[in-house]
């Protein structure tokens, strides 16, 4: 029972990665969402259409594509969680991605994106 689903119609948290970002980042984000029971879907780079170097703009475009209205995006060095009602330039959470903690940070972002969907308090500082 995996949570990945290729149908764009199915409600899911959408994830977009800047071209230079490794696909592993999507996997790590999806683990965080899976633990909370919410599916994730990776968007193609051209689908989101945001500025690939602006993590907030990319995440906003991604959130607008999601039927949950929640999107996560990763650019080099940053991961952002966005919600479609938020001002475009103001993501819900932006975190710096340091090499050593990339996995935890991405999983946390996925977990928080799922929490936005299910309505439970976000984890803003503690580690997974």
């Amino acid at each position: 029972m995996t949570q990945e689903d290729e149908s764009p119609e199915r409600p899911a948290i959408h994830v977009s990665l800047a071209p230079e970002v490794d696909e592993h980042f999507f996997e790590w984000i999806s683990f965080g969402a899976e633990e909370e029971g919410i599916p994730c879907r990776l968007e193609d780079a051209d689908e989101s259409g945001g500025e690939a170097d602006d993590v907030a703009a990319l995440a906003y475009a991604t959130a607008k594509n999601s039927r949950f209205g929640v999107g996560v995006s990763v650019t080099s060095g940053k991961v952002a969680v966005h919600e479609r009602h938020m001002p475009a330039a103001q993501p819900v959470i932006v975190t710096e991605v340091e090499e050593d903690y990339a996995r935890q940070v991405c999983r946390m972002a996925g977990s928080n994106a799922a929490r936005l969907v299910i309505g439970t308090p976000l984890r803003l500082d503690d580690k997974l």
Partner: protein
Amino acid sequence: MSIIAGVDIGNSTTEVAIARIEDGGSPEFLSSGSTMTTGIKGTAENISGIVQVLKESMEAASINMEDLELVLLNEATPVIGDVAMETVTETVVTESSMVGHNPGSPGGEGIGVGQTTHIRDLEDSDSDDSLPDEPIIVIVPQDYDFEVAADIITRALEAGVEVKAGIVQGDDGVLIANRLPEALPFVDEVAHIEKVPLDMLAAVEVAPQGRAVQQLSNPYGIATLFSLSSEETGHVIPIAKALIGLRSAVVIRTPESDVESKQIPAGSITFMGENQNLDIELEAGADAIMDTLAKVEPLSDVQGESGTNVGGMIERVRQTMADVTEKSLEDVKIRDVLAVDCQVPQQVEGGIADEFSTETATGLAVMVDTDRLLMERVAESLSEKIDTPVELGGAEANTAILGALTTPGIDVPVAIIDGGAGSVDAAQFQKGKPVEHVHLAGAGNMVTLLIQNELGLERFEVAEQIKINPLAKVESLFHIRHEDNSVQFFDDPLDSGLFGRVVLVKDDEFIPIESDHTLDRIRTVRQEAKRRVLLRNSIRALERISPSNNIRFLNFVAIVGRFGLDFELPQMLTNELISFDIVAGVANVREGLGPTNAVATGLIINYCQQQDEAA
């Protein structure tokens, strides 16, 4: 013609009324004011607050301070209250033998029974003979990544090992369960997984979403899973009790599993009345305690059995009161007691995942008499400070009644209810009779104590805030749902730290409550605390002052002071008193001041009446 001021120093606020009095006439009120009381009521520190609010009120009436001819000070309610709480039962797990908690997301569902086995014992799946051949519960510490763990367990299952369930340290339960070929229950977020004993028989239960564990919260369920004798079943009752209402749980059978709910010798209370003395065990519960008290009344003092919890509790209160009133311990006489039962979450001694068990506790509020010397000292120093005569202007109960009678639509016979942190006060007045009044133990601080203990809050201040502010749930980044179910939207996004939380609505600010309690739970605890202390005491007080102790003989009841300012208590009281067929509501002093300023206003009216009588 003269200008006089009425000043009421309360525990929290100091209130002022300014009036002009024609010779032999009735007062014409010019202005009112209020400020935070500076220092403890009845001490010299009060002066700076009084002077400040007097100046402000005089300015508002466009009168110079020099024209003020007389200041009337309240004779403070001569009682002080204190509260204490003691747990009557306690659950102790001396051998680690259960895990029960509500992690956000356990994995899978169902029940599994087997020997607790470390995941490293499954790694070597190639040589069949080294693998366990009995049903097992796999233990997964945090240093095993969930993919690695799922892989090891999958291969063990394929090799024929009967893995029945798992206990996981990290927040990985769902991730592991989702990666296995069959659905198995996994309890996760078990912080002290190293305390789980290995090679012991254990049962893991994960309930379906929206349900609580059935088998492990039932003593017979545990007996069935572990084939227990009737005697052994008796020993698991505390475990079953601690697991009630949880989504996931583990029970581990250790050889000398010694879990017991032990009764602390709570001790007994002796009520010493003017006519007789009666003892009552604290364990008998609040109702029995209050019934015993009613038989003994009028009360002259209270003693707790020495060497017991209640003995210590009453002596602590007596000591506090002795310190405040500067009396010797023997002279501190307890004049009233309110006992309230409550259910308090207590951390289980020896638990593995910070389990809590609900224990019975009893809260006691007590009240002692103080003397009036304190206010006389304040009057003297105030008089020196402002160079104006200052008099004590009548007992608080009388003046509060006179103030409340300025409320439109009210008439005698009238009763008032007032209350503060320590006591509930009531007074009753009929034409041609002296004012009857009573002070009862248990008020605002008791409510706060109950809220704090029943919700398991660390800080008194948080409970205090919960008491006085309504709740809301932050449902999205742009809207909250108030506790009355109405929804409020915002143009700008709320702080993401508030998302999903229960918050207190304080003016335009939202204060998150750092606890896992739902809004409904917090509201129920808050309202029940007010009901059990304030409502109950208000009724008890009205009964005492009513003719023939029957509330129905009262016609009008007015709520004054801080009780009238609470956001829900007045409605609760009105609702309750309607059944007695009396008009009850919040006073509206001088047709506009609401429940405040009753005493300050009454001081001036009282003065005028006395002038009248003298003339």
